[in-house]
């Protein structure tokens, strides 16, 4: 138990500055932007990700994000990926992750939330919705 508490205490020290931050850009290659409301922000390594952000990559772009439940998500070139919903309780490990791949390619490794409750992570696409029971998977939405 004590080990868990130390881990939680240290993790909170290392956590991003804003409570709304749910992920961190860990890999950023080529053209990568974050759309947050009306704003278009650059997405270098270290940029924070918040619910409702949309990650947009160019033809030479790819990006990798680590979420607070240790879910890992990457997007490839010419991709548009929206974080429609994200919540995670670090104590109970309950949460909800709804991603929306509008176009392009995505790879992901599910985290603690899916381990706690299968299908708490979902990926929406234009024609389907996918529930994640674990752990590593890829999705493509080709150009129409």
């Amino acid at each position: 138990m004590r080990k868990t508490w130390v881990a939680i205490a240290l993790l909170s020290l290392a956590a991003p500055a804003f409570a709304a931050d749910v992920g961190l850009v860990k890999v950023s290659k080529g053209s990568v932007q974050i759309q947050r409301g009306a704003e278009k922000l650059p997405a270098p390594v270290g940029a924070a990700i918040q619910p409702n952000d949309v990650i947009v990559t160019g033809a030479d772009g790819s990006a990798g994000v680590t979420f607070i439940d240790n879910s890992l998500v990457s997007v490839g070139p010419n991709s548009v990926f929206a974080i429609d919903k994200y919540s995670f309780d670090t104590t109970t490990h309950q949460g909800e992750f709804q991603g929306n791949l509008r176009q392009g390619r995505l790879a992901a490794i599910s985290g603690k939330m899916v381990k706690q409750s299968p299908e708490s992570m979902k990926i929406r696409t234009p024609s389907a919705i996918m529930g994640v029971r674990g752990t590593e998977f890829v999705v493509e939405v080709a150009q129409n």
Partner: protein
Amino acid sequence: MRWLALIAVAALAAACANTPKHVAPEMFAVVPSAADGHVGTIVVHPDGGRDRVIHEAYGVERIRSDGTVEDGQLSEAQVKETFGSTLAALPGRPASFTLYFLEGKDELTPDSKVEMDRVLAELKRRPLPDIMVIGHSDSVGGLSYNDKLSLARAERVRDMMIGMGIPADRIQAAGRGKRELLVPTEDNVSEARNRRVEINVR
């Protein structure tokens, strides 16, 4: 003129009804874990279709441009070809390492010195690591002595990481003293496996 407009509307409606559905082609596939080969499970619910469960390595569900849905199987090479740059952008998985120390000292054992090189190489592969270093001691000596010793061990390892070019603000160090023995012992027992530092990175 009015009847012309009516005919146009009717023709348009007929055209819509006859045109096959056209959607962006999609695919969903399970990939074995790069770390341990574990094969997971996904459930695809196509809009208006039945649920499909995929739990084979490289098992795939495709939605064609005409809206039809089919199950299939990809090869590893096909997945690499389509998703190579996407998979390459996945951040490193969270990982843990344990290093061991000489009795009463903040000096690594010879084996752990070798292991430390491997750990540093692994940490250096991560562009923006969050690293926790937690030091421990065995139960020889008093509480405050071991609190200091365990913190010295953690800080020694932290300094080695900084020396290898990992930014100091990415690394937290803490000492747990003899409060969290890996191998439970009576007090004042020398136990090599308890003289350790745990490194957690994500």
